């Protein structure tokens, strides 16, 4: 069967020979025409189109963008800020990097349209500290756009103006959480804020109404203005509209980034046809479908889902369409689109030990269950691998994880518990047997993971 065709909207020019990240090239390819179109539209009409489009946030939570914009407090009299979440840090995710490095003006145009639609006069791009070149490219692109009157005061001769500045993070994963990001942008430790009352749409940056959107999400806005909200809903599947960029890493022949209509490709097609299947002599064992926080899927397990008419259908991992809703129904999530593949050379205790070390390092420490729990999960899995393992460690890990999720200010509590909960639930036998198996000869190709 041939590999399904990509539908490149956001990544249309990524890796295109001769396409450069300067303004002249962007304009030659029709750049900033949609900003002109948007400025001739009423802001409310743009918000309507985004609502109609069904666009869901591409950062992780999949929250409808139009609804997010609809929640903004427009009566407070305070300025409204737009903050671009370019803190791409979810392990397994590497899409925004390419947009910012290779097509920064697409992002800037998306920002300016969204800013106009929401009466924003000041936007910030919060980019990861580990992307210094990306920050410089964005700064140069903003300067070019400013010189051409696409950014800054009196855009294209109108009375409307909006400035964009680049703000660099400094290596903390928690800054991807929108209220943590806001705290960081205020120059503080990125301790997430409690909701209520600190919903960014009402009390965000400097206690003003604030919209925080992911890089890819804002790029989609440009294309929604181009084709209209109704036409956009024709792409993808109902409630899972548009395209999204899937990032595949780990044990496949051809990892990389692929843009598909949401839900029009299954996990099996993605891994076996698009990515060329497992490495020679290996078999797929497990896959994390939406960034390392998403619950793991085990090859061989099946899911029985309800259809609208009340009947049921049974799916294997390979059958799952890569959309938001089916992945959620299968007990995991589409998250940030980061698909991490593990084959039969991987020991799941060791893979979890790697993940737990990440979350223990990145917990901000504000809430006790997360600060202590993430550290203990790391200590337990590290001990299992490097010191003594006990057959009851899986149950112990689960009990720690169960005491974190739902008991923290932000979703990091869930993000750090879900790997442990799902690994232990689906690979419990491997955890139980680990005291015996850990010293057995490793399968060919097995690598240290922790």
């Amino acid at each position, binding site marked *: 069967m041939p590999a399904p065709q990509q539908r490149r909207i956001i990544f249309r020019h990524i890796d295109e020979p001769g396409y450069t990240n300067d303004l002249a090239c962007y304009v030659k390819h029709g750049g900033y025409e949609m900003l002109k179109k948007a400025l001739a539209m009423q802001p409310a009409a743009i918000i309507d189109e985004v609502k109609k489009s069904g666009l869901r946030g591409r950062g992780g939570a999949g929250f409808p963008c139009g609804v997010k914009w609809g929640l903004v407090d427009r009566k407070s009299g305070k300025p409204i800020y737009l903050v671009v979440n370019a803190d791409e840090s979810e392990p397994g995710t590497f899409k925004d990097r390419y947009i910012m490095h290779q097509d920064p003006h697409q992002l800037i145009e998306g920002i300016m349209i969204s800013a106009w639609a929401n009466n924003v006069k000041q936007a910030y791009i919060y980019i990861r500290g580990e992307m210094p070149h990306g920050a410089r490219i964005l700064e140069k692109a903003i300067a070019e756009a400013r010189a051409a009157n696409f950014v800054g005061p009196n855009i294209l001769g109108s009375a409307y103006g909006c400035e964009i500045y680049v703000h660099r993070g400094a*290596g903390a994963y928690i800054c991807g959480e929108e209220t943590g990001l806001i705290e960081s942008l205020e120059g503080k*430790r990125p301790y997430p804020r409690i909701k209520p009352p600190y919903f960014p749409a009402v009390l965000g940056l400097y206690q003003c109404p604030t919209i925080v959107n992911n890089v890819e999400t804002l790029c989609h806005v440009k294309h929604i203005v181009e084709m209209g909200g109704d036409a956009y809903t024709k792409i993808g599947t109902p409630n899972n509209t548009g395209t999204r960029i899937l990032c595949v890493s780990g044990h496949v022949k051809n990892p990389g980034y692929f843009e598909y209509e949401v839900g029009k490709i299954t996990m099996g097609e993605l891994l076996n046809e698009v990515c060329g299947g497992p490495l020679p002599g290996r078999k797929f064992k497990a896959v994390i479908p939406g960034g390392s926080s998403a619950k793991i899927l085990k090859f061989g397990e099946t899911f029985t889902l309800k259809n609208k008419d009340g009947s049921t259908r049974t799916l294997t991992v390979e059958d799952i369409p890569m959309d938001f809703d089916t992945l959620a129904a299968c007990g995991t999530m589409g998250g940030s689109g980061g698909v991490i593949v593990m084959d039969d050379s991987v020991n799941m205790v060791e893979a979890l030990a790697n993940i737990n070390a990440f979350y223990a390092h990145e917990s901000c420490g504000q809430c006790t269950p997360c600060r202590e729990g993430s550290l203990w999960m790391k200590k337990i899995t590290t001990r299992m691998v490097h010191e003594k393992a006990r057959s009851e460690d899986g149950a112990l890990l689960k009990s720690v994880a169960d005491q974190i999720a739902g008991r923290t200010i932000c979703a990091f509590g869930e993000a750090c518990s879900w790997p442990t909960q799902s690994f232990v639930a689906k690979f419990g036998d491997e955890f139980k047997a680990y005291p015996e198996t850990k010293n057995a000869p490793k399968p060919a190709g097995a690598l240290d993971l922790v």
Partner: protein
Amino acid sequence: MNLKPETLRRIDDVITHYPVKRSAVLMLLHAIQEDVGYIPQEAIEWVAQKLELQPINVYEVVTFYPMFRQKPIGRRHIKVCRTLSCALMGGYKTCAAFEKEFDTHRGEISPDGEVTIEFVECLASCGTAPVVMIDDDLHEKVDTAKAKQLSDQIKAEAAKRR
């Protein structure tokens, strides 16, 4: 504080980007670390004064964010990604290869002062794992052979300088 004129110019410019001065803390610390190589104690007090804050407001930022360091490091900074996608493709072997090349352990300055090797968390380039950042530059698919090659380059540049 003895900062380069260019750094001071950047600092004065970036403060104007925010309606509240405190917001500029991270950007100032980046500028100082790029200039000085680390964040000395006096820089914390200098930034606090510059932004009309208490030194603790700056210190708590320096100690939280992994990229800021309060001690000098080797001439080149080698950051090897440790997180899952890179580990699945041999990130731990890559890190060990650099350590062997420079006869050092991660977190320490190599005996010749040339490098500091560190494990860092996800660098957002998982499709080209394992990845390594050397100073500002990302290097992709760094297996042990490529780690050796990159190490040789660093050593050659060091020899030229001596």
